[in-house]
Protein backbone atom coordinates (compact mmCIF):
# COMPACT_ATOMS: atom_id res chain seq x y z
CA UNK A 1 0.00 0.00 0.00
CA UNK A 2 1.38 3.41 -0.92
CA UNK A 3 0.36 6.88 0.08
CA UNK A 4 0.86 10.28 -1.54
CA UNK A 5 4.48 11.50 -1.77
CA UNK A 6 3.71 14.19 0.85
CA UNK A 7 2.43 11.61 3.30
CA UNK A 8 5.34 9.25 2.60
CA UNK A 9 7.68 12.15 3.37
CA UNK A 10 5.83 12.89 6.60
CA UNK A 11 6.08 9.23 7.64
CA UNK A 12 9.78 9.10 6.75
CA UNK A 13 10.50 12.09 8.99
CA UNK A 14 8.22 10.97 11.79
CA UNK A 15 10.26 8.06 13.09
CA UNK A 16 13.21 10.30 14.00
CA UNK A 17 10.99 12.35 16.30
CA UNK A 18 10.73 9.61 18.92
CA UNK A 19 13.42 7.82 20.94
CA UNK A 20 15.24 4.94 19.26
CA UNK A 21 13.28 1.73 19.59
CA UNK A 22 10.05 3.53 20.55
CA UNK A 23 8.68 4.05 17.06
CA UNK A 24 5.31 2.66 18.07
CA UNK A 25 4.76 6.28 19.13
CA UNK A 26 4.14 7.00 15.43
CA UNK A 27 1.04 4.81 15.46
CA UNK A 28 -1.67 7.36 16.23
CA UNK A 29 -0.29 10.16 14.01
CA UNK A 30 0.28 7.67 11.16
CA UNK A 31 -3.27 6.37 11.37
CA UNK A 32 -4.76 9.85 11.60
CA UNK A 33 -2.85 11.31 8.66
CA UNK A 34 -3.40 8.16 6.60
CA UNK A 35 -7.13 8.29 7.32
CA UNK A 36 -7.25 11.67 5.60
CA UNK A 37 -6.23 9.92 2.36
CA UNK A 38 -7.84 6.53 2.78
CA UNK A 39 -11.12 7.67 4.33
CA UNK A 40 -11.39 5.19 7.16
CA UNK A 41 -9.51 2.43 8.97
CA UNK A 42 -9.57 -0.26 6.32
CA UNK A 43 -8.06 -3.69 7.01
CA UNK A 44 -5.43 -2.92 4.40
CA UNK A 45 -4.47 0.33 6.12
CA UNK A 46 -4.23 -1.29 9.54
CA UNK A 47 -2.08 -4.09 8.19
CA UNK A 48 0.16 -1.64 6.35
CA UNK A 49 0.74 0.51 9.42
CA UNK A 50 1.35 -2.57 11.57
CA UNK A 51 3.94 -3.78 9.08
CA UNK A 52 5.71 -0.45 8.90
CA UNK A 53 5.92 -0.12 12.69
CA UNK A 54 6.71 -3.78 13.18
CA UNK A 55 3.81 -4.32 15.57
CA UNK A 56 0.86 -6.71 15.47
CA UNK A 57 -2.45 -5.83 13.83
CA UNK A 58 -3.98 -6.49 17.24
CA UNK A 59 -2.06 -3.54 18.67
CA UNK A 60 -3.40 -1.37 15.87
CA UNK A 61 -6.95 -2.61 16.46
CA UNK A 62 -6.67 -1.82 20.17
CA UNK A 63 -5.95 1.78 19.34
CA UNK A 64 -8.47 2.09 16.51
CA UNK A 65 -11.18 0.76 18.82
CA UNK A 66 -10.38 3.32 21.47
CA UNK A 67 -10.19 6.66 19.65
CA UNK A 68 -13.40 8.31 18.49
CA UNK A 69 -11.89 10.08 15.50
CA UNK A 70 -10.63 6.84 14.01
CA UNK A 71 -13.40 5.85 11.63
CA UNK A 72 -14.47 2.26 11.72
CA UNK A 73 -16.43 2.56 8.48
CA UNK A 74 -16.56 4.76 5.41
CA UNK A 75 -18.10 8.14 6.14
CA UNK A 76 -19.43 10.80 3.79
CA UNK A 77 -17.31 12.95 1.50
CA UNK A 78 -18.14 15.70 3.95
CA UNK A 79 -18.33 14.81 7.60
CA UNK A 80 -20.62 17.13 9.50
CA UNK A 81 -20.02 17.26 13.24
CA UNK A 82 -22.42 19.07 15.51
CA UNK A 83 -21.59 19.81 19.12
CA UNK A 84 -24.36 19.44 21.67
CA UNK A 85 -22.23 19.60 24.79
CA UNK A 86 -23.10 21.96 27.61
CA UNK A 87 -21.93 25.34 26.24
CA UNK A 88 -23.38 24.61 22.81
CA UNK A 89 -26.56 23.19 24.36
CA UNK A 90 -27.11 26.53 26.09
CA UNK A 91 -27.12 28.10 22.61
CA UNK A 92 -29.51 25.47 21.19
CA UNK A 93 -26.88 23.19 19.69
CA UNK A 94 -29.28 20.29 20.34
CA UNK A 95 -31.81 21.90 18.01
CA UNK A 96 -29.17 22.23 15.29
CA UNK A 97 -28.48 18.55 15.72
CA UNK A 98 -32.17 17.58 15.42
CA UNK A 99 -32.52 19.82 12.40
CA UNK A 100 -29.57 18.25 10.62
CA UNK A 101 -30.87 14.74 11.34
CA UNK A 102 -34.30 15.59 9.96
CA UNK A 103 -33.02 17.40 6.92
CA UNK A 104 -30.63 14.62 5.99
CA UNK A 105 -32.79 11.73 7.15
CA UNK A 106 -29.85 10.12 8.92
CA UNK A 107 -28.65 9.85 12.50
CA UNK A 108 -25.44 9.68 14.51
CA UNK A 109 -22.51 8.25 12.53
CA UNK A 110 -24.69 7.56 9.52
CA UNK A 111 -24.11 8.44 5.87
CA UNK A 112 -26.58 9.68 3.24
CA UNK A 113 -27.44 7.17 0.55
CA UNK A 114 -25.44 9.07 -2.07
CA UNK A 115 -22.38 8.94 0.20
CA UNK A 116 -22.00 12.70 0.18
CA UNK A 117 -22.65 13.64 3.79
CA UNK A 118 -22.21 11.91 7.12
CA UNK A 119 -23.37 13.18 10.47
CA UNK A 120 -21.94 12.93 13.95
CA UNK A 121 -23.12 14.34 17.27
CA UNK A 122 -19.81 15.29 18.80
CA UNK A 123 -18.64 16.02 22.31
CA UNK A 124 -17.05 19.38 23.13
CA UNK A 125 -14.88 20.54 20.20
CA UNK A 126 -13.35 23.53 22.02
CA UNK A 127 -15.51 26.23 20.49
CA UNK A 128 -17.50 26.96 23.66
CA UNK A 129 -17.21 30.76 23.52
CA UNK A 130 -18.45 30.74 19.93
CA UNK A 131 -21.43 28.44 20.39
CA UNK A 132 -23.26 26.84 18.82
CA UNK A 133 -20.41 25.37 16.84
CA UNK A 134 -19.95 22.69 14.23
CA UNK A 135 -17.03 21.17 12.38
CA UNK A 136 -17.18 20.48 8.67
CA UNK A 137 -14.42 17.92 8.24
CA UNK A 138 -11.63 19.79 10.09
CA UNK A 139 -13.05 23.31 9.61
CA UNK A 140 -14.75 25.09 12.46
CA UNK A 141 -17.91 27.15 12.00
CA UNK A 142 -18.99 29.34 14.88
CA UNK A 143 -22.27 30.94 16.00
CA UNK A 144 -24.14 28.74 13.54
CA UNK A 145 -27.78 29.70 12.90
CA UNK A 146 -30.43 27.23 11.68
CA UNK A 147 -30.50 29.11 8.35
CA UNK A 148 -26.73 28.77 7.95
CA UNK A 149 -26.96 25.07 8.67
CA UNK A 150 -29.72 24.67 6.05
CA UNK A 151 -27.67 26.51 3.46
CA UNK A 152 -24.57 24.48 4.27
CA UNK A 153 -26.47 21.23 3.80
CA UNK A 154 -28.13 22.43 0.60
CA UNK A 155 -24.75 23.47 -0.82
CA UNK A 156 -23.17 20.16 0.11
CA UNK A 157 -26.00 18.27 -1.57
CA UNK A 158 -25.53 20.23 -4.78
CA UNK A 159 -21.75 19.87 -4.79
Amino acid at each position, binding site marked *: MTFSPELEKRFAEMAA*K*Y*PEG*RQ*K*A*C*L*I*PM*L*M*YAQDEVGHMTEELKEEVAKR*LNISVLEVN*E*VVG*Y*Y*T*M*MRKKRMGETHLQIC*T*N*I*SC*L*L*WDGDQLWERACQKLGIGHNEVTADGKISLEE*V*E*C*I*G*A*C*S*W*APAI*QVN*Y*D*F*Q*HHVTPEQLDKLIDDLRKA
Partner: protein
Amino acid sequence: MYPSLLHESPHPDETIVLGKRFRLPDSRRIGTYLAHEGYQGFLKASQMTPEQIIDEVKASNLRGRGGAGFPTGLKWSFVPRQSPKPKYIVVNGDESEPGTCKDRVLIQYDPHQLIEGILIAGRAVDAHRGWIYIRGEYRYLIDIMDEAIAEAYARGWLGKNIQGTGFDFDLSTHTGAGAYECGEESALLESLEGKRGVPRIRPPFPAVSGAFQCPTVLNNVETFAAVPSIMRMGGQAWAALGIPKAGGTKFTCLTGHVNRTGVYELALGFPVRKMIEDVGGGIRGGKKLKAMIPGGSSCPILTGEEAWELNMDYDSMAKAKTMLGSGGVVLMDEDTDMVKAALRIIRFYQHESCGWCIPCREGTLWLKKLLTRLDEGVGTVKDIDLVGDLADNMLGRTFCPLGDAAAMPTMSIVRKFRHEFEAKLGRKTVSMAGLSQLVSITG
Protein backbone atom coordinates in the same frame (compact mmCIF):
# COMPACT_ATOMS: atom_id res chain seq x y z
CA MET B 1 -8.71 32.30 6.66
CA TYR B 2 -9.01 30.81 10.12
CA PRO B 3 -12.10 31.76 12.11
CA SER B 4 -11.47 34.82 14.25
CA LEU B 5 -11.50 34.06 17.96
CA LEU B 6 -11.10 37.61 19.23
CA HIS B 7 -13.24 40.66 19.73
CA GLU B 8 -11.94 43.62 17.77
CA SER B 9 -10.26 45.14 20.79
CA PRO B 10 -9.56 43.81 24.26
CA HIS B 11 -11.95 44.66 27.07
CA PRO B 12 -10.57 47.54 29.18
CA ASP B 13 -10.73 45.37 32.31
CA GLU B 14 -8.49 42.69 30.81
CA THR B 15 -4.85 42.48 31.88
CA ILE B 16 -3.12 41.80 28.61
CA VAL B 17 0.22 40.05 29.07
CA LEU B 18 0.29 36.76 27.18
CA GLY B 19 -2.14 38.17 24.66
CA LYS B 20 -0.26 41.33 23.81
CA ARG B 21 0.71 40.22 20.30
CA PHE B 22 -2.64 38.63 19.44
CA ARG B 23 -3.97 41.59 17.47
CA LEU B 24 -0.78 42.40 15.56
CA PRO B 25 -0.78 41.64 11.85
CA ASP B 26 0.76 38.22 11.16
CA SER B 27 0.91 37.59 14.90
CA ARG B 28 1.86 33.96 14.45
CA ARG B 29 4.94 34.64 12.30
CA ILE B 30 8.37 34.51 13.87
CA GLY B 31 9.24 37.96 12.44
CA THR B 32 6.38 39.52 14.38
CA TYR B 33 7.34 37.59 17.47
CA LEU B 34 10.99 38.64 17.34
CA ALA B 35 10.02 42.28 16.76
CA HIS B 36 7.91 42.25 19.94
CA GLU B 37 10.19 40.89 22.65
CA GLY B 38 9.99 37.36 21.27
CA TYR B 39 12.55 34.84 22.56
CA GLN B 40 14.04 37.47 24.93
CA GLY B 41 12.90 35.42 27.91
CA PHE B 42 14.78 32.41 26.61
CA LEU B 43 17.95 34.46 26.05
CA LYS B 44 17.69 35.70 29.61
CA ALA B 45 17.15 32.16 30.89
CA SER B 46 20.15 30.93 28.95
CA GLN B 47 22.34 33.19 31.16
CA MET B 48 20.80 31.69 34.31
CA THR B 49 21.40 28.42 36.12
CA PRO B 50 18.57 25.85 36.12
CA GLU B 51 18.03 26.57 39.83
CA GLN B 52 17.65 30.27 39.13
CA ILE B 53 15.09 29.63 36.40
CA ILE B 54 13.04 27.36 38.66
CA ASP B 55 13.28 29.90 41.49
CA GLU B 56 11.98 32.60 39.16
CA VAL B 57 9.01 30.43 38.17
CA LYS B 58 8.37 29.66 41.84
CA ALA B 59 8.47 33.38 42.64
CA SER B 60 5.86 34.01 39.95
CA ASN B 61 3.34 31.84 41.81
CA LEU B 62 2.36 30.33 38.47
CA ARG B 63 0.03 27.41 38.97
CA GLY B 64 -0.88 24.83 36.34
CA ARG B 65 -3.47 26.23 33.98
CA GLY B 66 -4.91 22.93 32.79
CA GLY B 67 -7.24 22.59 35.75
CA ALA B 68 -5.41 21.07 38.70
CA GLY B 69 -3.57 24.27 39.65
CA PHE B 70 -0.37 22.62 40.88
CA PRO B 71 2.51 25.09 41.44
CA THR B 72 4.59 24.98 38.25
CA GLY B 73 8.01 25.81 39.70
CA LEU B 74 7.59 23.07 42.29
CA LYS B 75 6.60 20.56 39.60
CA TRP B 76 9.75 21.38 37.63
CA SER B 77 11.91 21.02 40.73
CA PHE B 78 10.81 17.37 41.07
CA VAL B 79 12.66 16.41 37.89
CA PRO B 80 15.89 14.59 38.85
CA ARG B 81 18.28 16.61 36.69
CA GLN B 82 21.20 14.33 37.60
CA SER B 83 19.44 11.26 36.21
CA PRO B 84 21.41 9.66 33.36
CA LYS B 85 18.17 9.27 31.39
CA PRO B 86 17.12 11.88 28.85
CA LYS B 87 14.53 14.36 30.13
CA TYR B 88 11.53 15.42 28.11
CA ILE B 89 9.04 18.26 27.85
CA VAL B 90 5.46 17.40 26.96
CA VAL B 91 2.78 20.01 26.32
CA ASN B 92 -0.81 19.17 27.03
CA GLY B 93 -2.84 20.70 24.23
CA ASP B 94 -5.63 18.16 24.47
CA GLU B 95 -8.06 20.88 25.57
CA SER B 96 -11.32 18.96 25.87
CA GLU B 97 -12.93 19.98 29.13
CA PRO B 98 -16.39 21.23 28.15
CA GLY B 99 -16.48 25.02 28.42
CA THR B 100 -12.78 25.42 27.67
CA CYS B 101 -11.45 26.94 24.46
CA LYS B 102 -8.49 29.09 25.52
CA ASP B 103 -5.55 27.03 24.26
CA ARG B 104 -6.99 27.44 20.80
CA VAL B 105 -6.53 31.19 21.10
CA LEU B 106 -3.00 30.87 22.48
CA ILE B 107 -1.89 28.57 19.66
CA GLN B 108 -3.76 30.28 16.83
CA TYR B 109 -2.45 33.77 17.61
CA ASP B 110 0.98 33.24 19.19
CA PRO B 111 2.54 29.80 18.65
CA HIS B 112 6.09 31.06 19.17
CA GLN B 113 5.25 32.13 22.72
CA LEU B 114 4.52 28.48 23.44
CA ILE B 115 7.77 27.33 21.80
CA GLU B 116 9.74 29.84 23.88
CA GLY B 117 8.10 28.62 27.09
CA ILE B 118 9.05 25.06 26.19
CA LEU B 119 12.67 26.07 25.56
CA ILE B 120 12.89 27.76 28.95
CA ALA B 121 11.45 24.67 30.65
CA GLY B 122 13.98 22.58 28.74
CA ARG B 123 16.82 24.74 30.03
CA ALA B 124 15.46 24.45 33.58
CA VAL B 125 15.35 20.65 33.67
CA ASP B 126 18.09 19.79 31.15
CA ALA B 127 15.66 18.47 28.56
CA HIS B 128 16.49 18.54 24.87
CA ARG B 129 13.37 17.02 23.33
CA GLY B 130 9.73 17.95 23.51
CA TRP B 131 6.34 17.13 22.04
CA ILE B 132 3.24 19.26 21.79
CA TYR B 133 0.26 16.91 22.07
CA ILE B 134 -2.76 18.57 20.44
CA ARG B 135 -6.23 17.08 20.22
CA GLY B 136 -7.01 15.65 16.80
CA GLU B 137 -10.00 17.94 16.23
CA TYR B 138 -7.60 20.91 16.31
CA ARG B 139 -5.90 19.85 13.08
CA TYR B 140 -5.57 23.43 11.84
CA LEU B 141 -3.78 24.35 15.05
CA ILE B 142 -1.40 21.42 14.59
CA ASP B 143 -0.65 22.84 11.14
CA ILE B 144 -0.09 26.31 12.62
CA MET B 145 2.21 24.83 15.26
CA ASP B 146 4.11 22.79 12.63
CA GLU B 147 4.67 25.96 10.61
CA ALA B 148 5.90 27.85 13.66
CA ILE B 149 8.26 25.01 14.57
CA ALA B 150 9.65 24.98 11.02
CA GLU B 151 10.18 28.76 11.23
CA ALA B 152 11.97 28.38 14.55
CA TYR B 153 14.30 25.71 13.13
CA ALA B 154 14.99 27.84 10.05
CA ARG B 155 15.85 30.88 12.17
CA GLY B 156 17.96 28.99 14.69
CA TRP B 157 15.53 29.04 17.63
CA LEU B 158 15.25 25.24 17.64
CA GLY B 159 17.82 22.59 16.82
CA LYS B 160 21.52 22.49 17.69
CA ASN B 161 23.29 25.24 19.64
CA ILE B 162 20.34 27.61 19.68
CA GLN B 163 21.55 31.18 18.98
CA GLY B 164 25.05 30.21 20.09
CA THR B 165 23.94 29.43 23.64
CA GLY B 166 25.20 25.85 23.40
CA PHE B 167 21.68 24.61 24.16
CA ASP B 168 20.09 22.01 21.85
CA PHE B 169 16.38 21.38 21.61
CA ASP B 170 14.14 19.41 19.24
CA LEU B 171 10.39 19.84 19.14
CA SER B 172 7.46 18.41 17.21
CA THR B 173 3.70 18.16 17.36
CA HIS B 174 1.78 14.97 18.06
CA THR B 175 -1.88 14.58 17.15
CA GLY B 176 -4.50 13.08 19.40
CA ALA B 177 -7.43 11.19 17.92
CA GLY B 178 -10.53 12.08 19.90
CA ALA B 179 -10.37 11.06 23.54
CA TYR B 180 -11.07 13.43 26.44
CA GLU B 181 -9.25 11.03 28.73
CA CYS B 182 -5.95 11.87 27.02
CA GLY B 183 -6.06 15.29 28.69
CA GLU B 184 -5.23 13.46 31.92
CA GLU B 185 -1.45 13.55 32.09
CA SER B 186 -0.65 9.86 32.45
CA ALA B 187 -3.21 8.85 29.81
CA LEU B 188 -1.70 11.47 27.52
CA LEU B 189 1.70 9.84 27.94
CA GLU B 190 0.26 6.44 27.05
CA SER B 191 -1.31 7.98 23.97
CA LEU B 192 1.99 9.64 23.03
CA GLU B 193 3.60 6.21 23.16
CA GLY B 194 1.06 4.88 20.66
CA LYS B 195 -1.36 3.19 23.01
CA ARG B 196 -4.92 3.50 24.28
CA GLY B 197 -5.23 6.49 26.57
CA VAL B 198 -5.70 4.79 29.90
CA PRO B 199 -4.22 6.32 33.05
CA ARG B 200 -1.10 4.99 34.76
CA ILE B 201 -0.79 4.12 38.40
CA ARG B 202 1.08 6.85 40.27
CA PRO B 203 3.59 7.16 41.80
CA PRO B 204 5.90 7.34 39.97
CA PHE B 205 4.80 10.73 38.71
CA PRO B 206 5.81 11.99 35.26
CA ALA B 207 8.57 14.16 36.74
CA VAL B 208 10.38 10.90 37.57
CA SER B 209 8.97 8.51 34.97
CA GLY B 210 6.95 10.13 32.22
CA ALA B 211 7.26 10.00 28.44
CA PHE B 212 9.03 6.79 27.41
CA GLN B 213 9.70 6.16 31.12
CA CYS B 214 12.02 9.16 31.36
CA PRO B 215 11.76 12.23 33.61
CA THR B 216 9.20 14.56 32.05
CA VAL B 217 7.78 18.01 32.62
CA LEU B 218 4.18 17.96 31.50
CA ASN B 219 2.17 21.18 31.59
CA ASN B 220 -0.79 22.79 29.87
CA VAL B 221 -0.37 25.08 26.83
CA GLU B 222 -1.24 28.18 28.85
CA THR B 223 1.25 27.28 31.58
CA PHE B 224 4.17 27.11 29.14
CA ALA B 225 2.93 30.20 27.31
CA ALA B 226 3.14 32.16 30.57
CA VAL B 227 6.81 31.36 31.15
CA PRO B 228 8.41 33.78 28.62
CA SER B 229 6.73 36.79 30.24
CA ILE B 230 7.75 35.53 33.68
CA MET B 231 11.36 35.44 32.53
CA ARG B 232 11.17 38.87 30.92
CA MET B 233 9.31 40.63 33.73
CA GLY B 234 10.78 38.67 36.62
CA GLY B 235 8.78 36.29 38.78
CA GLN B 236 7.79 38.81 41.42
CA ALA B 237 6.49 41.38 38.96
CA TRP B 238 4.48 38.68 37.23
CA ALA B 239 3.10 37.43 40.53
CA ALA B 240 2.01 40.96 41.41
CA LEU B 241 -0.42 40.94 38.46
CA GLY B 242 -2.55 38.49 40.38
CA ILE B 243 -3.18 38.00 44.06
CA PRO B 244 -1.04 36.40 46.79
CA LYS B 245 -0.62 32.65 46.15
CA ALA B 246 -1.95 32.91 42.60
CA GLY B 247 0.21 34.95 40.28
CA GLY B 248 -0.40 36.46 36.90
CA THR B 249 -3.30 36.28 34.54
CA LYS B 250 -5.67 33.50 33.55
CA PHE B 251 -7.36 32.99 30.22
CA THR B 252 -11.04 32.79 30.97
CA CYS B 253 -13.63 31.47 28.53
CA LEU B 254 -17.04 33.04 29.01
CA THR B 255 -19.61 30.63 27.62
CA GLY B 256 -23.33 30.07 27.87
CA HIS B 257 -25.96 32.72 28.56
CA VAL B 258 -23.85 35.86 28.57
CA ASN B 259 -23.99 38.74 26.09
CA ARG B 260 -20.32 38.91 25.15
CA THR B 261 -19.07 35.34 25.10
CA GLY B 262 -15.36 35.12 24.42
CA VAL B 263 -11.92 34.35 25.75
CA TYR B 264 -10.48 37.04 28.03
CA GLU B 265 -7.17 37.44 29.84
CA LEU B 266 -8.06 38.38 33.40
CA ALA B 267 -5.84 38.96 36.42
CA LEU B 268 -6.15 36.16 38.98
CA GLY B 269 -8.63 37.15 41.66
CA PHE B 270 -10.97 38.96 39.22
CA PRO B 271 -14.43 39.40 40.77
CA VAL B 272 -17.13 37.17 39.26
CA ARG B 273 -19.68 40.00 39.33
CA LYS B 274 -17.41 42.25 37.28
CA MET B 275 -16.53 39.41 34.96
CA ILE B 276 -20.17 38.75 34.12
CA GLU B 277 -21.55 42.29 34.16
CA ASP B 278 -18.69 44.29 32.68
CA VAL B 279 -16.53 41.93 30.66
CA GLY B 280 -19.37 39.66 29.60
CA GLY B 281 -21.90 42.48 29.21
CA GLY B 282 -24.39 40.82 31.56
CA ILE B 283 -26.62 37.80 31.29
CA ARG B 284 -28.34 37.40 27.92
CA GLY B 285 -31.75 39.04 27.66
CA GLY B 286 -31.36 40.77 31.03
CA LYS B 287 -32.20 37.51 32.79
CA LYS B 288 -30.99 36.38 36.17
CA LEU B 289 -28.04 34.05 36.65
CA LYS B 290 -29.25 30.68 37.88
CA ALA B 291 -25.99 28.77 37.97
CA MET B 292 -22.33 28.98 37.08
CA ILE B 293 -19.69 26.35 36.45
CA PRO B 294 -16.42 28.16 37.14
CA GLY B 295 -13.82 26.14 35.25
CA GLY B 296 -14.99 23.40 32.94
CA SER B 297 -17.88 21.00 33.36
CA SER B 298 -16.10 18.81 35.91
CA CYS B 299 -16.23 21.54 38.58
CA PRO B 300 -18.99 21.48 41.18
CA ILE B 301 -21.69 23.94 40.17
CA LEU B 302 -22.45 27.20 41.97
CA THR B 303 -25.85 28.82 42.28
CA GLY B 304 -26.09 32.33 40.91
CA GLU B 305 -26.22 33.79 44.41
CA GLU B 306 -23.12 31.86 45.49
CA ALA B 307 -21.15 32.75 42.38
CA TRP B 308 -21.92 36.44 42.48
CA GLU B 309 -19.81 37.12 45.57
CA LEU B 310 -16.72 35.10 44.58
CA ASN B 311 -13.46 35.91 42.85
CA MET B 312 -11.83 34.00 40.02
CA ASP B 313 -8.93 32.41 41.86
CA TYR B 314 -7.98 29.04 43.30
CA ASP B 315 -8.61 29.79 46.99
CA SER B 316 -11.83 31.73 46.55
CA MET B 317 -13.28 28.86 44.53
CA ALA B 318 -11.94 26.23 46.95
CA LYS B 319 -13.69 28.01 49.83
CA ALA B 320 -16.94 27.70 47.89
CA LYS B 321 -16.19 23.96 47.51
CA THR B 322 -15.53 24.17 43.81
CA MET B 323 -12.49 24.79 41.58
CA LEU B 324 -11.06 27.45 39.31
CA GLY B 325 -10.32 24.58 36.95
CA SER B 326 -9.40 25.26 33.36
CA GLY B 327 -10.99 28.67 32.98
CA GLY B 328 -14.09 27.45 31.15
CA VAL B 329 -16.90 29.46 32.72
CA VAL B 330 -20.38 28.16 31.90
CA LEU B 331 -23.19 30.58 32.72
CA MET B 332 -26.81 29.47 32.90
CA ASP B 333 -29.75 31.83 33.08
CA GLU B 334 -32.97 31.48 35.10
CA ASP B 335 -34.71 29.51 32.32
CA THR B 336 -32.12 26.74 32.17
CA ASP B 337 -33.40 23.22 32.73
CA MET B 338 -30.93 21.88 35.31
CA VAL B 339 -32.01 18.26 34.86
CA LYS B 340 -31.17 18.51 31.17
CA ALA B 341 -27.87 20.20 32.00
CA ALA B 342 -26.93 17.44 34.45
CA LEU B 343 -27.88 14.79 31.91
CA ARG B 344 -25.85 16.41 29.13
CA ILE B 345 -22.81 16.65 31.36
CA ILE B 346 -23.02 13.01 32.46
CA ARG B 347 -23.61 11.84 28.89
CA PHE B 348 -20.24 13.36 28.06
CA TYR B 349 -18.35 11.68 30.88
CA GLN B 350 -20.01 8.35 30.15
CA HIS B 351 -18.93 8.62 26.53
CA GLU B 352 -15.38 9.51 27.51
CA SER B 353 -14.82 7.04 30.36
CA CYS B 354 -12.00 4.81 29.19
CA GLY B 355 -13.45 1.84 31.05
CA TRP B 356 -10.30 1.09 33.02
CA CYS B 357 -11.85 1.58 36.48
CA ILE B 358 -15.19 -0.03 37.23
CA PRO B 359 -16.61 2.73 39.47
CA CYS B 360 -16.20 5.17 36.59
CA ARG B 361 -17.20 2.84 33.76
CA GLU B 362 -20.35 1.60 35.50
CA GLY B 363 -21.04 4.70 37.55
CA THR B 364 -21.21 7.05 34.59
CA LEU B 365 -23.44 4.62 32.68
CA TRP B 366 -25.95 4.22 35.50
CA LEU B 367 -25.96 7.93 36.23
CA LYS B 368 -26.81 8.50 32.58
CA LYS B 369 -29.65 6.01 32.75
CA LEU B 370 -31.07 7.49 35.95
CA LEU B 371 -30.80 11.07 34.74
CA THR B 372 -32.42 10.14 31.42
CA ARG B 373 -35.36 8.66 33.27
CA LEU B 374 -35.66 11.70 35.48
CA ASP B 375 -35.48 14.01 32.48
CA GLU B 376 -38.12 12.03 30.63
CA GLY B 377 -40.42 12.33 33.62
CA VAL B 378 -40.57 8.64 34.44
CA GLY B 379 -38.13 8.66 37.34
CA THR B 380 -38.93 8.23 41.01
CA VAL B 381 -37.84 9.95 44.22
CA LYS B 382 -35.61 6.93 44.81
CA ASP B 383 -33.86 7.67 41.52
CA ILE B 384 -32.95 11.15 42.73
CA ASP B 385 -31.43 9.73 45.91
CA LEU B 386 -29.68 7.00 43.96
CA VAL B 387 -28.01 9.56 41.70
CA GLY B 388 -26.45 11.15 44.78
CA ASP B 389 -25.41 7.80 46.27
CA LEU B 390 -23.91 6.51 43.04
CA ALA B 391 -21.92 9.66 42.42
CA ASP B 392 -20.71 9.65 46.01
CA ASN B 393 -19.47 6.09 45.56
CA MET B 394 -17.41 7.06 42.52
CA LEU B 395 -15.55 9.87 44.27
CA GLY B 396 -11.90 9.06 44.92
CA ARG B 397 -12.26 5.47 43.76
CA THR B 398 -10.65 5.68 40.33
CA PHE B 399 -7.05 5.85 39.04
CA CYS B 400 -7.59 9.19 37.36
CA PRO B 401 -9.85 12.15 38.06
CA LEU B 402 -12.42 11.33 35.33
CA GLY B 403 -14.58 9.50 37.86
CA ASP B 404 -14.49 12.53 40.14
CA ALA B 405 -15.04 14.83 37.18
CA ALA B 406 -18.29 13.02 36.45
CA ALA B 407 -19.42 12.73 40.05
CA MET B 408 -18.74 16.25 41.29
CA PRO B 409 -20.97 18.28 38.97
CA THR B 410 -23.73 15.66 39.17
CA MET B 411 -23.81 15.61 42.97
CA SER B 412 -23.75 19.37 43.22
CA ILE B 413 -26.50 19.89 40.65
CA VAL B 414 -28.77 17.38 42.35
CA ARG B 415 -28.06 18.85 45.78
CA LYS B 416 -28.52 22.49 44.81
CA PHE B 417 -31.35 22.09 42.33
CA ARG B 418 -33.18 19.08 43.77
CA HIS B 419 -36.51 20.87 43.44
CA GLU B 420 -36.12 20.82 39.65
CA PHE B 421 -35.63 17.06 39.67
CA GLU B 422 -38.66 16.64 41.89
CA ALA B 423 -40.75 18.90 39.67
CA LYS B 424 -40.24 16.51 36.76
CA LEU B 425 -41.45 13.45 38.66
CA GLY B 426 -44.59 12.02 37.11
CA ARG B 427 -44.52 14.47 34.22
CA LYS B 428 -43.72 12.22 31.34
CA THR B 429 -42.43 14.29 28.44
CA VAL B 430 -42.25 11.62 25.77
CA SER B 431 -44.61 8.92 24.52
CA MET B 432 -44.09 5.33 25.64
CA ALA B 433 -42.54 4.54 22.27
CA GLY B 434 -40.24 7.53 22.55
CA LEU B 435 -38.85 6.58 25.94
CA SER B 436 -35.20 5.67 26.03
CA GLN B 437 -34.68 1.97 26.56
CA LEU B 438 -33.84 1.87 30.20
CA VAL B 439 -33.43 -0.95 32.63
CA SER B 440 -35.44 -0.59 35.79
CA ILE B 441 -33.08 -0.77 38.71
CA THR B 442 -35.08 0.65 41.57
CA GLY B 443 -37.85 -1.94 41.73
